[in-house]
């Protein structure tokens, strides 16, 4: 048998994968039999050396990486393509959403965005008792986890304090499911302290939700709004992101002779190469795939002009420490002011370069910088601008070391604060930490509480007990468990002192 047939056979006969999971991996293999969009030799070389990386999205982009439909459209107008009338009550609205989700693609084949659920459902809640609302949300939540089991699937609530948001927080803590992931958008002018307290108390129980600094995100986007999806991605609503590519800053630093060479030559060169890779992939999506002729665009769920390009970077910690070594400075990233300042300077350089470069088929003509949370097979490279696993300082020092980066990463910055379990008795401390982090400019507040079964791996949720089961070869219902198990073994992620996992960070079957 040929190598290719061997691989396909392995996937087909893997007892730990469900048929749907097998189909997913088979599709990736098939796509990758096609030639890559035309790249020049320098970009090919950089891609093969993984100095720059396409997130193993496949050779022939035929759908955007992240799609954030404006579900208000289908709730208001129904869909002629799907032969759906506009819903009139809460049951019909939830049913319409459940159908809609099935037609929204993403890189994983599952929807990554479930919408601003409270804003979407509130208009249908008049006359619905709190008790009924709670029961309906609970069934909805169970449906999402069992039918669309991908930890990257993300619901948004807030910033207002309302019945639907409260019902969702209550159900989410009670069920402790991996899916969906959840973000509460916090705005001190709109949200009540009470609902932020509810949200932070939930974090103490199940490490969810994430909390988004709404005023900061809102200012980054336009009036049409934004959504938080997958791990930490802030993207235009009614659009999304066509691609995610990323630069391995550690490799850039390795190729540089010293700090000056890094800023003058190595970094600008890597930035340019990654732009060329990104543009080639986006051109294929827009000019060859026919994606934007779908009913999603025709009915106005999405607008082809509202897809950005996520311009990712990772391994900041390793890059800074290498440059420090080259300069004979002992200070380490995350702990030393000079090392931290060097990191902030790199982020600024990246942000300026991204703002300066026009792009085709991209929202507002510019890519958006992203601090990327890592792939499950990254070795010796810390996600985004994070401080390496297991070495993080106390949460307040942690926030202060990283806060200056946040201004630069418009499409999201992945940071996880690990909090020891004593905080379970004192969730007020989490509330205060979150407010402090936002006052320092944090875009996102994400915390793992040690001893919770539900924990975040590189950004998505996993159950530690599922990883144990997966290791014992029982397979997992949830796509992301396989990734979590891989990430745990390869990247030392569970060293992050304190569980379902996620599809999109896989480099493909067996990678």
């Amino acid at each position: 048998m040929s190598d290719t047939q061997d691989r396909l056979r392995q996937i087909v006969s893997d007892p730990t994968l469900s048929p749907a999971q097998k189909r997913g991996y088979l599709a990736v293999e098939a796509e990758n039999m096609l030639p890559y969009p035309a790249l020049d030799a320098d970009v090919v070389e950089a891609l093969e050396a993984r100095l720059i990386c396409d997130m193993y999205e496949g050779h022939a982009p035929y759908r955007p990486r992240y799609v954030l439909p404006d579900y208000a459209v289908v709730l208001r107008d129904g869909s002629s393509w799907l032969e759906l009338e506009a819903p009139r009550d809460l049951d019909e609205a939830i049913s319409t959403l459940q159908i809609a989700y099935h037609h929204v693609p993403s890189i994983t084949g599952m929807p990554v965005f479930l919408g601003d659920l409270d804003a979407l459902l509130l208009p249908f809640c008049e006359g619905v008792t709190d008790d009924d609302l709670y029961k309906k949300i609970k069934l909805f939540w169970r449906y999402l986890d069992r039918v669309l089991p991908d930890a990257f699937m993300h619901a948004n609530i807030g910033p207002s304090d309302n019945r639907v948001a409260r019902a969702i927080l209550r159900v989410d803590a009670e069920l402790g499911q991996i899916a969906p992931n959840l973000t509460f958008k916090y705005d001190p002018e709109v949200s009540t302290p009470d609902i932020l307290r509810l949200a932070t108390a939930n974090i103490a129980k199940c490490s969810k939700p994430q909390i988004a600094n709404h005023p900061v995100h809102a200012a980054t986007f336009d009036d049409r709004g934004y959504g938080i999806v997958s791990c930490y991605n802030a993207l235009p609503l009614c659009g999304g992101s066509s691609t995610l590519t990323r630069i391995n800053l550690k490799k850039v630093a390795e190729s540089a002779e010293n700090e000056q060479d890094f800023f003058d030559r190595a970094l600008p060169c890597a930035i340019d190469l990654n732009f060329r890779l990104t543009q080639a992939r986006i051109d294929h999506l827009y000019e060859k795939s026919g994606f934007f002729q779908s009913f999603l665009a025709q009915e106005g769920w999405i607008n082809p002009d509202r897809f950005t390009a996520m311009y990712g970077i990772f391994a900041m910690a390793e890059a800074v420490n290498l440059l420090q070594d080259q300069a004979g400075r002992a200070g380490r990233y995350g702990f030393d002011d000079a090392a931290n300042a060097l990191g902030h300077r790199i982020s600024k350089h990246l942000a300026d370069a991204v703002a300066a470069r026009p792009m085709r088929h991209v929202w507002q003509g510019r890519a958006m910088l992203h601090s990327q949370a890592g792939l499950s097979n990254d070795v010796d490279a810390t996600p985004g601008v994070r401080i390496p696993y297991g070495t993080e300082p106390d949460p307040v020092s942690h926030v202060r070391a990283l806060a200056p980066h946040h201004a630069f990463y418009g499409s999201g910055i992945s940071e996880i604060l690990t909090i020891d379990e004593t905080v379970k008795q004192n969730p007020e401390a989490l509330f205060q930490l979150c407010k402090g982090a936002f006052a320092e400019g944090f875009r996102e507040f994400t915390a793992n509480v040690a001893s919770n079964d539900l924990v975040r791996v590189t950004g998505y949720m996993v159950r530690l007990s599922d990883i144990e089961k997966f290791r014992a070869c029982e397979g997992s219902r949830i796509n992301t468990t396989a990734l979590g198990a891989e990430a745990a073994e390869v990247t030392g992620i569970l060293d992050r002192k304190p569980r379902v996992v996620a599809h999109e960070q896989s480099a493909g079957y067996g990678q």
Partner: protein
Amino acid sequence: MSNPQATVNKLLTWSSVDGPGNRLVLFLQGCNFACAACHNPYTIGVCNDCGDCLPVCEPRALTMQGGRVKFDADLCTQCDKCTDICPISASPMVRRMSVDQVIATIRDHAHFLTGITVSGGEATMQLKFLTALFAAMGEDPALSNLTRFVDTNGHLGAKGWARLMPVMDGAMLDIKALDPALHRDLTGQELDKTLRAARLLKDAGKLFELRYLLVPGVTDKPDQITTLIDFTRSLGGQTRIRLNAFQHHGVRGHALDWPPMQRAGVEAVADRLRAADTGEVATPALYL
């Protein structure tokens, strides 16, 4: 203006175990109790510059300058050999901080904080500094929303409490034992002052919680818990009680002969307190 100073063993900007919310915690050096079960005994004594710890410090972080021990934090590898050898349970790794310096640090972290807790050692032994710090916080519009707590053994006399109480929001009061002879045995000091402090604080509405350390076979006997319930009731109203479990972590000397307190034992005591309806009962989040 006077700007009193304190000898500070440690300053934390994140703590979820020293009172409500996130607190900046200042651990002051020096204690008037000598508790066998102390889990940070190196905060008990105050350095007399004897120099005994200098030779054990391999990176030479400790030097003698003008008859006084100088500590260089940049050279220190945190091996703790100096505090292990110190004959009087002191530490050379302390720093002097003035009220102004501490206020500046609190201001810098204010948006992360629910309040501050001064612990130790015994916080109230540096009363002048403590009252000046709390008063300064109260007068600073940017800090007046932060709550000011002390963690204390209650040995401070009524006059001292009268000075501190007006500028303090709450106290966490440790009671090591409720039998006078046992208390003397465990701490080297008399029990009555601690009990008097508990009443004073309760009457002023400033007793945030009573803390009681459970040591198996020493302080967890049924009649001792009965005494704890009776005493708490005698304070009037409801009083929050935090049960701590004796663990070996950090402990030195003969107290290591005592077994660590297990979760089941703590829960049994907590059940009795809850049944007696003395107020909220908190149990340890962690058993090391």
